């Protein structure tokens, strides 16, 4: 298997997997979305809420706020089910405090965390509005969790793959250029030097087959390679996408190990 990184940004990673198979790519995708742990607000203790927004709506909004954590402080935190405390303790939770007097909009920058390394990714998310003389005071507890339990623990937003496209143009092609005009993504172009239709941006092809439909003699065919995939991982900023991928691979290999020990008669 070969991996070729195409695009790498702060919150987005695009790479090509070659010589793999569909089931493997899908396993990685599902684990990236559902089983990579991240930190999110789980419990909110409302001390005072005089705003028009209901407590549960506010708690839900707080839960969806992505919290940034470097890998060290996230790994130091225990998964609540594995912690030996009864309810919550500093080993498995981080608390954040919000205290604000109206009038005005309360933003995530007003949330102060007890751990300076674990804080909201964005400072500009509006949480609620306060009128004159209204006040809000609450204590929120953030914990580790996985996407399978709640969408707020999903580290990825867009996490998807597509087959690597494969375009073949027959030698008998009459160069009518209809296919190049029909392509909505600029994949095909007419090269005047060689007087031929050329594939200029193969990876951008969405396999919509607009070009096949306009070709009168079916000289062009669109297919895909079964073993190659273009994979995109976009995160909400709480964990870098490379780390999501690495952690997903760890989870997958742990699962494989479990199956092996089970088959060998262990428990």
């Amino acid at each position, binding site marked *: 298997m070969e991996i070729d990184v195409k695009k790498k940004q702060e919150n987005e990673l695009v790479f090509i997997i070659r010589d793999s198979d569909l089931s493997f790519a899908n396993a990685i995708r599902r684990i990236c979305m559902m089983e990579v742990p991240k930190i999110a607000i789980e419990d909110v203790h409302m001390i005072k809420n005089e705003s028009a927004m209901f407590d549960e709506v506010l708690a839900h909004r707080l839960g969806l706020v992505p919290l940034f954590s470097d890998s060290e402080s996230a790994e130091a935190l225990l998964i609540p089910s594995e912690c030996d405390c009864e309810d919550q303790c500093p080993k498995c939770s981080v608390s954040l405090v919000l205290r604000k007097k109206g009038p005005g909009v309360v933003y995530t920058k007003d949330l102060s965390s007890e751990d300076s390394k674990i804080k909201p*990714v964005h400072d500009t*998310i509006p949480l609620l509005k306060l009128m004159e003389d209204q006040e809000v005071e609450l204590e929120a507890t953030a914990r580790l969790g996985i996407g399978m339990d709640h969408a707020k623990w999903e580290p990825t*937003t867009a996490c998807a793959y597509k087959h690597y496209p494969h375009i073949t143009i027959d030698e008998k092609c009459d160069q009518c250029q209809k296919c190049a005009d029909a392509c909505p993504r600029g994949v095909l172009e007419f090269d005047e030097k060689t007087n031929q239709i050329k594939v200029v941006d193969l990876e951008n092809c969405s396999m919509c087959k607009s070009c096949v439909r306009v070709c009168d003699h079916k000289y062009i065919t669109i297919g895909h390679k079964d073993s190659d995939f273009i994979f995109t991982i976009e995160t*909400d900023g709480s964990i870098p996408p490379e780390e999501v991928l690495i952690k997903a691979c760890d989870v997958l290999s742990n699962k494989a190990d479990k199956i092996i020990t089970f088959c060998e008669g262990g428990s």
Partner: protein
Amino acid sequence: MIPVRCISCGKVVSAYFDEYQNRTAEGEDPKVVLDDLGVNRYCCRRMLISHVETW
């Protein structure tokens, strides 16, 4: 209040809402602002375009 995340894909669109509103109020083309903010998918774009702040 605008939802914190895009309902379809989960991107945190509310973080860009204030900037989007200020810039479009000044007469900038919403398309240019959205492209500039990195809100690329149409699910996320409709979250900002169609939102009406009522109070």
